[in-house]
Structure formats: structure tokens, C-alpha cells
């Protein structure tokens, strides 16, 4: 089940997605963290943030949910002093530190602090948060801005940099290409899809933030399409596929689309043990589908 992200080896492709697993430690109450391929921790900004007003969560029937948490986090100093070392005490696999910012300088600064003060393995740079004004997505919707963030972050760290891309764009391949050309070591996609729900009895949006990010099984086809497009546009660049993955079969499908590893988000909010269940079910699904090594199927649909 082993896979690689650049030269980092993951024992399996399953990674709890940033924003759906706290700082990892929280999950240790019901799961041995060391079974996971990697852990992508809560997005971090320079200063502590309280996030958006509540309600921040809205359900979307059986297909998923909206969130507008708005990057609530304790700030990078707390994360490097407390959260990452705490996780490291319980977990010896790759830690993916997710970084957000409101300016190019902030992205670079936060990456530099994490690089200098922790042994996080990969930096996942979120240029796609839909839930805060000017909070990242502005950088992820233009190839020039995405390239500028990538360049600034690469100059600030020697750790592998994966840029986390927004689906809320017309052509995701142009953003992906711009990031790779600016030095990104890999890509992670997709972040949530901008959405809305309305409380028809009170005639107002359900979310206090009005709009929020849609995630869950409903976005899987969008994520598969975008991962596949990007895998063709950026051959050789490792992709972490993310979006609506809920089962071992979804993991395999995402890898066939072009992902080298897979993040599980909303499914872990519905079932806190989702990652464990999927990891345990993968060998059997592989056997059934006659997959010997998961790495053999990455982007296999591009070989037509």
C-alpha cells in the first residue's frame, strides 16, 4: 500500500485532511495515529484567529456539508511550540503542516517558522480557503498570484511545498501549471467548492458567513475531474487528491485519476474512524481489483 510524495514514503495513501482532524492529537483518543499515511493538520496563520461567526456548519442532505469555519487557529507560534511537538510525541509518520495567509509575506513567514522550529515533513500551502475575505482564495484564483506565493514560500523553506488548489476557478490547470513552474514540489486538490444553503423558514442564509465550502461525497466527481486534468497538465508532479473520498474504492478511483495519495475530509466528520476503516479495507479491495502495488494505478486512466 506504500506510496511516495516526492521522496517521502507513506505507508499507505490515506491522509486525514486539514481542518477535519484538528492537530491530529485529538484523533488519538479513538485511533492509533501511526496507521495513517500522513496527517494534514489544521491550517495555520501568523496570528491566532477566532474564525467566522456561527453557524459555521450547514448540512446538505445525504451528499455532504458546508463549512465556513474561517481558519480558526491558535497562530503559528502556538502551533510550532505546542501543537506539532505534541503530535510528534504520538506519531512518527509524515506531518503535513497546512499554511494560510492574508499576504505573500505572511505565507512565507509562517512557512519559515514551521520550517525552522519543527520537523513537519511537508508544507501544504492553502491558496484556496473560500471562507475568509482575502484569505487565500484570492491567491489561488489567478496563475500570477499563485506563482508569486509559491515562489515566496519556496524561498522561505527547504521542505517540500505542496500548493492546495481551489476548485472555484475556470481553468485549474493554468493555476496548477503556474505553481509547478514557480517551483512547487507537489499539488493538493481540491479545496471545498463555494456553496450556499438558505433557511427557507427564516428567509436567510443558514451560514452566518452567507457562503461556505461544500465538501462530502457530492464533490467527488468534481475532484476526480480536476485531479485528472491537473495530472495531465503537470506530468511528474505528485498530487494529493482530495474531495468527497469516503471509501477504499474512492481512494482507488482518486489514484486512478492521477493522485499519489488521498486526503479524507468530510467523511471523517461523519465517521471519526473513517481513515482507519478505509485503510483496513484497502488490501481486500486491491486484491479484488488485481492491484499489486497502489503506485501502479496512479493516473492509469491517462494511459488510454
Amino acid at each position, binding site marked *: 500500500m506504500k506510496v511516495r510524495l516526492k521522496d517521502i514514503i507513506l505507508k499507505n495513501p490515506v491522509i486525514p485532511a486539514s481542518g477535519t482532524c484538528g492537530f491530529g492529537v485529538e484523533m488519538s483518543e479513538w485511533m492509533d495515529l501511526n496507521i495513517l499515511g500522513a496527517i494534514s493538520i489544521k491550517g495555520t496563520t501568523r496570528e491566532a484567529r477566532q*474564525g467566522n461567526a456561527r453557524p459555521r*456548519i450547514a448540512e446538505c*442532505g*445525504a451528499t455532504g*456539508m458546508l463549512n465556513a469555519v474561517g481558519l480558526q487557529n491558535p497562530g503559528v507560534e502556538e502551533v510550532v511550540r505546542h501543537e506539532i511537538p505534541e503530535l510528534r510525541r504520538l506519531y512518527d509518520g509524515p506531518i503535513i503542516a497546512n499554511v494560510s495567509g492574508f499576504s505573500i509575506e505572511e505565507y512565507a513567514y509562517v512557512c519559515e517558522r514551521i520550517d525552522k522550529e519543527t520537523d513537519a515533513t511537508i508544507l501544504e500551502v492553502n491558496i484556496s480557503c473560500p471562507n475568509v475575505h482575502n484569505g487565500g482564495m484570492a491567491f489561488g484564483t489567478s496563475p500570477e498570484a499563485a506563482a508569486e506565493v509559491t515562489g515566496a514560500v519556496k524561498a522561505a523553506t527547504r521542505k517540500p511545498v505542496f500548493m492546495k488548489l481551489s476548485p472555484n476557478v475556470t481553468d485549474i490547470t493554468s493555476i496548477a501549471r503556474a505553481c509547478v513552474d514557480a517551483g512547487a514540489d507537489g499539488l493538493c486538490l481540491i479545496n471545498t467548492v463555494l456553496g450556499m444553503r438558505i433557511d427557507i423558514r427564516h428567509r436567510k442564509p443558514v451560514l452566518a458567513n452567507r457562503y461556505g465550502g461544500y465538501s462530502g461525497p457530492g464533490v467527488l466527481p468534481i475532484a476526480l475531474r480536476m485531479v485528472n486534468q491537473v495530472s495531465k497538465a503537470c506530468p511528474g508532479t505528485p498530487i494529493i487528491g482530495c474531495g468527497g473520498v469516503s471509501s477504499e474504492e474512492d481512494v482507488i478511483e482518486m489514484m486512478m485519476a492521477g493522485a499519489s495519495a488521498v486526503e479524507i475530509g468530510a467523511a471523517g466528520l461523519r*465517521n*471519526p474512524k473513517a481513515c482507519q476503516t478505509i485503510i483496513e479495507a484497502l488490501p481486500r479491495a486491491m486484491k479484488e481489483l488485481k492491484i499489486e502495488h497502489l503506485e501502479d494505478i496512479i493516473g492509469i486512466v491517462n494511459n488510454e
Partner: protein
Amino acid sequence: MKQNKWHLLSNERIAERVWKMVLTGDVSGIVPGQFVELLVPGHYLRRPISVCDVDGDRLTLIYKTVGQGTVIMSQMRPDEKLDLLTCLGNGYDMSKAEDEVLLIGGGVGVPPLIYLAKKLREGGKRVHVVIGFNTKSEVFSEEMFLNLGCGVDVCTIDGSYGKHGVVTDVLKKSAPYYFACGPMPMLRAIVQTIGTNGQMSMEERMGCGVGICVGCSIETKNGMKRVCKEGPVFDVECLMLNV
């Protein structure tokens, strides 16, 4: 957090839009003030429901039908299997209660006080309960508290049952240590009437219910706290209720 399959024993309407569900399963570790998260067919996120009582291996949940998910819950029939997360959140800290304790509940905020009253009575406390509802057809739980040996005042806003008015009309300034659960306007009125010497349950829309998504975080005097993890019960002194 524990995740288990539960067996539904009964599910019946006990008041206007209020239902009582009894399940059997692994009740170990559940304390008063905690909640469970219940998977509902056709819905992605679980429903957080407060623990109303634990008796042997039986768990009682009292819930109100407020949307599609809880309506589907009300249609569940005995013998169905349910997927629950239990032991969620921080319950009431009963060590702070003195010999005489006051419980204050409003509407569907009353259920968690029932298991609490039972445990306080087992601990030999004198328990007085003040519960409020909109109208007679919504009243429930009076007999459960009486059977536990609690003093009970029931209020209805329209005066159709019990005392005419809201719970704070009954409260005296010199109230003992209290535990409260109910709608925000009621909680604010309690603080205005008898102060902050107690604990309250907060309610919030949740994503995960287990502390990993921070969707339900509220600002407190001690920083941002997750209602599902550090809560739902908080010391009133720490809360920022905009009183």
C-alpha cells in the same frame, strides 16, 4: 468517544413535537450533561442529542422534531439498529454542588437535567427543579423529576399549565448553586436574575461532535472553546452571554 451499534426499544411522542427514544447498548462511561451523535439515514452529518437518562443498559434520549433529520428519527421503529457515538463532551461537574441544588430547564433543554437530577439525588442532594415551556401541550418530564424526589415548579409562558410566566419569574435572588440548559434568552435571564454561580449547557450547530472540525467553537473568557469537546457544559463565569 465510543462508536457502537444500538438497538432501538421504543420511540414515542411524549408532548407536542417532543419524542422519547429508548435504546440498549454500551452505556459505559456516559455521564450527565454529555451528548450522543446519531446517524440518520439520508443525512450526512450526525444529530447531536443530549443524554436524558441511563438505566442499566438502557439509554433514553428526548428530542424535538425541528428539521428533516429529527423527523426521520421520530419515524424509527423498535428493533432498528442505530449507529451512535457516545461519551461526547464534558458533562456537569457535580462536585461543585452543595447540599441544595437548583436545576433550571427550558423546553427541549430539560432532558439532560433528568439524568443529572438522578445522580444528584443518588448523592443525597436536595434538588429543586424549575422548568419552563411555551404551553401545556409542550410540557414533559414533571413526573420524572417528582419520581426522583425533586421539588418541581413548572411554568408556561401562556399560563395554560403550572405557573404563568417564565422560569426566572420563579427564581429567588438567593438561589443555590445551579445547573441550567435551555434557549439563550432564558440563559441570559437566569444570569440577570440569580448571577453566575452555576453551570450551563451550550447548544451549537456541529460538524463532527468530537472536537476535530472546530465548527461549533464559541468565544469564552478563556479563549475559543469547542461546544462539543470542552463543552457542552461550561462554568457560567467563563461564558460571554452578552448579558
